[in-house]
């Protein structure tokens, strides 16, 4: 599934990285006035031309990090630089563009009016070309309020293209889209990425990270818990799950085996997360109490759960 694309990566020492987050911290106070830390010291460097997937469960701090990256909120500690500039400058000049998760559009405008109105703010932008690239030619006259979620998302994408950005930031761009809309959306993004644009996208969908990104950064509870190429992260996460019905004592004994990374009880079955399923199977078959044994390849979703849970128990273990 991993397509290796030749991507030109700038070697110049003089050209700063696309993104440089240094020990960024953001705290909020909730409704009862209690302080909590949404982003707890994130360091992140994105080189030019990289396509980076930003993963994490809900509430991990993805959107807060993106808001700070775009200069929409100020970090309490640490610093943010985009192409060596202040985020707001880079964003306002159109060097950096964003597709935000929801909202951001006026329901009473038509698709074309929205693109032309915002396009007027970027001298030299080509509204017609952008409409075509985002596949919105047939929807020019439709009011935003009447567009589906996927169509609105393509409109946000079109708006982001107006300035011809060097870095595109997408915050869960395909949330709420059906499979076809998601595929079409990524096809359009990929086309632009192949021109050398740097892309950072936050997503829930492992599959999207897997198919589209060069590099994966996972965060959980405001910290980076994994960072590496897609294949690194996949191999770190590789393995199988062996599950069976068995007694509590047997399960506990097996869980202590070095083959087993973790053990959970779900629906009356013990699920063993293992690096060597064959060896574990031999052990398990020898146990008379074990029945209905199953071996399943681990989905990235499960792997993701393991990594974030691991990060929770063994603090910063995977860093």
């Amino acid at each position: 599934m991993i397509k290796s694309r030749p991507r030109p990566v700038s070697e110049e020492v003089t050209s700063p990285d696309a993104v440089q987050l240094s020990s960024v911290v953001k705290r909020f106070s909730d409704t009862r006035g209690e302080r909590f830390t949404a982003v707890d010291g994130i360091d992140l460097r994105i080189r030019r031309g990289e396509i980076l997937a930003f993963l994490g469960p809900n509430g991990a701090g993805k959107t807060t990090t993106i808001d700070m990256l775009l200069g929409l909120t100020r970090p309490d500690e640490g610093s943010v630089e985009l192409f060596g500039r202040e985020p707001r400058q880079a964003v306002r000049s159109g060097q950096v563009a964003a597709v935000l998760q929801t909202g951001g559009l006026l329901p009473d405008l038509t698709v074309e009016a929205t693109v032309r109105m915002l396009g007027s703010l970027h001298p030299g932008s080509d509204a017609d070309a952008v409409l075509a690239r985002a596949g919105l030619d047939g929807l020019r006259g439709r009011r935003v309020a009447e567009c589906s979620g996927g169509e609105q998302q393509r409109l946000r994408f079109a708006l982001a293209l107006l300035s011809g950005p060097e870095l595109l930031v997408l915050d869960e761009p395909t949330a709420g889209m059906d499979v076809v809309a998601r595929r079409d959306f990524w096809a359009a993004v990929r086309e632009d990425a192949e021109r050398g644009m740097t892309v950072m996208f936050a997503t829930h969908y492992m599959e999207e990270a897997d198919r589209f990104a060069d590099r994966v950064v996972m965060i959980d509870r405001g910290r980076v818990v994994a960072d590496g190429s897609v294949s690194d992260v996949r191999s770190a996460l590789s393995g199988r799950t062996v599950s069976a019905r068995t007694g509590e004592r047997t399960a506990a004994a097996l869980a202590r085996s070095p083959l087993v990374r973790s053990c959970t009880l779900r629906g009356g079955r013990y699920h063993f997360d293992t690096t060597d399923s064959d060896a574990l199977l031999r052990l398990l078959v020898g146990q008379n109490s074990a029945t209905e044994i199953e071996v399943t390849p681990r989905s990235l979703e499960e792997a993701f759960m393991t990594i974030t849970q691991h990060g929770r128990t063994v603090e910063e273990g995977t860093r």
Partner: protein
Amino acid sequence: MSAPSAPSAPSAPSAPFWSARGARTSPFSGVNAVFIGYELRRRFNRQTTIFTLLLPTVLYLALFRTAPDDATLPHGNFAAWMMTGIAVYGAATAAVSSAATISMEKASGWMRTMALSPLAPPGYLFVKVLSSVLMAAVPVVIVGVLGTFTGVRATATVWVTSLLVAWLGSAVFAALGITLGLALKPDTVMHMPGLTMTALAFLGNLFIPLSGTMLEISRYSPMFGVSTLARYGLTDGYSFSGEHSSLALAVVNTVAWFAAFSFMAVRRFRKSTGRG
């Protein structure tokens, strides 16, 4: 998504297909004619336009003959006094109607889109004020035309200055409209500005000639300054019951309220770009 190929791209990522990065930051905080055009088209929607036209017309026709018995004015007649008052009220109501569009912009996250665009905050506020002031011209012209047909008598200077001040004075309420728009939710914003304006108009000595304690209170209200300035040429600052209001105090009132509303608008605006 069938996307035809876009402008050809040089391969090096450090020099993307948009070359002159520095030249791209738009002048005048990003304000341009196309943007203003769309903004005006949104603003002059049917509902707001009808409301802006109809209300001053009906009020003027209802009130221009309601002169007190002893009404005498140095430089014109009571109809001129009422025409000026309704012009101030109409212009203020038109100007404050930006609240409706702004409230919707805030609710829909458009402010965040603006925050990510080259349109700098002063540019955004400028466009809002400009469209408010343009919209405020509509009721002023209508009331002026009605005035000529309903026997308004005043010197030429009074005609021009009163309507001009009524129009330009709407800037005070354009600032108020931005504040209300940022402060209110879309479902309440439909009625609040209209009601506020009507209340301020009564309080500001616009519809019914005030005197005594009411006039004393009135002096501190936001519409008093603009209406007194607009009518100064007509009345020399005297009410029908003979109380005098100085030009200087009317100027102070106008400037103070304008400063107060602008301050609130800018403060609200700064807060509004974050996540809801």
